[in-house]
């Protein structure tokens, strides 16, 4: 048995929502029975961008805002891997939001866990694009990544969890992993994950979350219905959580995997390309 790195203890403050996210992700991976050596967790920059150090899997620390293109590259190059991208709301909704849109459009086989704490924790509490979820009185309005995802017709999996509701979170993350691994494509799971030090939203969010999973007749395969429900819930000053939308086309999974394609005996095929240039 080859000794490898020892997983680290989380760097997060006591009470941080991210503990809940990590615990739920670990459980979801265990439930899915994926060996750690088949898992690649890519994380962005921020407090959330350390989760890859803690679970004993392959881990990668991407640039700020660039975790989605990086993870897309990994997922396309080796579709046999279980690829998980993780990051915060600054990473995914501010500097990297352009990539989120295009990842919905591309639908690669990966699960994206966006830990939304409505603040920049690592740089000590500046406002993020979701800050109005905590302080609704500013000039700028908040960004809702689930509504954004619903508006992009090629999105296939949109869920929102809350680190204060771990059982549901495990279920949502598990469903996300199944979606990505099973050929569905890009699974987006936003997790409301409070920052107890700079933006303690536990009291607000505990009261604000509204669980669509519990709503009788809610149909997560109905995109327009999902959009209407999210607007309705937001209009009531609450935050919709649960399995919000799931459907659409299949994900993109190259076969064979570019990472393991045979590179020998191809001289004739190369020559055929070169011969087109002969004069």
């Amino acid at each position: 048995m080859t000794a490898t790195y020892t997983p680290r203890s989380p760097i997060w403050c006591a009470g941080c929502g991210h503990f809940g996210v990590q615990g739920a992700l670990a459980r979801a991976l265990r439930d899915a029975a994926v060996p750690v050596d088949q898992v690649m967790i890519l994380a962005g920059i921020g407090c959330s961008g350390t989760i890859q150090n803690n679970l004993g899997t392959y881990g990668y620390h991407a640039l700020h805002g660039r975790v989605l293109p990086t993870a897309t590259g990994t997922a396309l190059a080796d579709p046999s891997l279980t690829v998980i991208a993780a990051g915060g709301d600054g990473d995914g909704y501010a500097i990297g939001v352009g990539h989120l849109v295009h990842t919905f459009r591309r639908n690669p086989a990966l699960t994206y866990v966006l830990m939304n704490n409505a603040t920049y924790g690592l740089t000590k509490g500046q406002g993020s694009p979701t800050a109005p979820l905590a302080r609704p009185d500013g000039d700028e309005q908040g960004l809702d990544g689930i509504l954004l995802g619903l508006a992009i017709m090629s999105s296939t999996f949109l869920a929102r969890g809350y680190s204060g509701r771990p059982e549901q979170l495990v279920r949502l993350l598990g469903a996300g992993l199944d979606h990505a691994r099973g050929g569905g494509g890009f699974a987006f799971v936003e997790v409301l994950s409070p920052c107890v030090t700079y933006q303690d939203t536990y009291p607000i969010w505990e009261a604000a979350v509204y669980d669509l999973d519990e709503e009788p007749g809610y149909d997560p395969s109905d995109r327009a219905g999902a959009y209407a429900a999210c607007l309705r819930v937001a209009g009531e000053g609450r935050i919709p959580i649960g399995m919000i939308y799931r459907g659409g086309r299949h994900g993109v999974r190259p076969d064979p995997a570019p990472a393991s394609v045979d590179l020998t005996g191809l001289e004739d095929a190369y020559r055929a390309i070169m011969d087109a240039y002969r004069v």
Partner: protein
Amino acid sequence: MTVTTASTLDDVTVAVSGQGGDGSLTVITLLGRILSARGFHLYSARNVASRIKGGHAAAMVRGSHAYRGGLDGSVDLLVAFDQEAVERIGPSMAAGGIVVFDGSGGALPAGSLPDGMRVFEVPFARMAVRDLRRDLYKNSLAFGVLTRVLSVPDAEAEARMVEGLGRLPAALQEVNRIALHHGFAYADDQGIPDGGGVWALEATVAPERLLITGNEALALGFLVAGGRFFTGYPITPASEILESLQRHLPRFGGVTVQAEDELSAVNMAIGAALTGVRAMTATSGPGLALMQEGIGHAGSAEVPLVIVDCQRAGPSTGMPTKPEQSDLAMLVHGGNGEFPRVVLAPGGAADCFELAVAGVGIARRLQCPVYIALDQAIAQHAETVAPFDLDVPVEGGAMIGGHELAARAEYRRYLVTADGVSPWVVPGTPGGMNLVTGNEHNEWGQVSIDPENRRTMMAKRARKLTAAAGDLPRAVRWGSDDAEVGVIGFGFTVAPMREAVERLADLGVPVAGLQPRTLWPVPAEVVDFVRAHRVTFVVEHNDEGQLLALLVAAGAPLDRVRGIRRCDGLAFTPGELVERIVGEVGR
């Protein structure tokens, strides 16, 4: 133009120019086949009028028995579809040149041509409209006159045209054939009979060659080296690499992604490279500026990555269709912090293939970013080269698989080694779990700000270049062995330098030429070359002398180098370099 007998040429430059859509490129392509069949090397450029003066559409081909790889600065034979073409290209006409001018839109502009030009004025457009009802056929008419001027037998001209227009519907082909014969008839009227033109093309025996652009050759090299993942964002003059690999990679189980921007392109390539696939991205200066953070990340995280920079005139969006060599400082020093990187620079299409192969291998061996620096001219102009050697071994590097890993007691992703290169285990390998990060890290890939670890890791990464220095692509040397004068240049300065050195030798000025193919780290052979010559001219297309500064910083004596530079979007011509060097060596 070289005239071997009274009227027989073995080096000729032909330009066809008009408005976009006039079919200039078609005429040049057909003429290229005729030249090639006579053993001529070809160098072919599109939109080259913009190279001479500005935005007018033109195509140009230089055919020569000797390999040239560039233009010689003057045009022997011009087919001008309008007055603007004469105004733009006229001043570049060679002494004794011929102009075939379409006078449909007005008279030959006064004063645009040097004295002694022979002008055939033909109302191509009017004839095409009158006889064939479409202006469109005027290029076939022109081709008929052009081939008569060059004494190409009518039957051959027609055969080449049928070949070249083979994809057109039969009816259109027939009208073009009729147009060609109208051209012949016009030539008859002018007293230029079949096979008896003003000039003739000297035939020689030559091996079969490829006619290929640098971008196409580079894409092929990447594929042959085992490259299977490419990302790019469209940008002039790099887009043909994206297009070429989009066409070819899928058949080989590879993936090409057109990214949403260059930030995505470079990071997606990095993400792919983490799995062990050989990955590349390509861009030009503005895109490369956006990629800097990602490339530094690959340097720090030790990810093998090839980045192609098809340089164009900067700063900012600059002059997108003009070549320049002003990204060199960014290639060598760009990005925050310090990390090892290699910069390779091809001097022609054959180099593009070879250095793509080498670049993929070096990135793999050293686990670091490798740049391949082209420029617009190298990237987009086509030239004839010998067929490439496709029997290329795919470089494995220090990657280890499950069996080798299992034999180890422990695995550290960033193990400190003598050559700085650590064994590499990719995700999915049982038991090899590891952490990769652009933050400073310890051997296990865990983030660390420990001063001693920092010193160790900086030194480890730097050692990769020191250890590899001897294995990087070597410079190409030509000219005199015992000259006091040297010239150094890379990219699209190489062809005019090579030709200038030849002409200088004829003038009794022995000069040695050097084309470094590795620009960074600066190879010892380049500094030694400067030391070995009384004066070395550093020829480059930028304002600040970036290559010269690089050589001096690497130890080349400042009092032995002189810069020859331009940054106006125009290529050096051999004649200009001859003049500059002759003018300066006396001083």
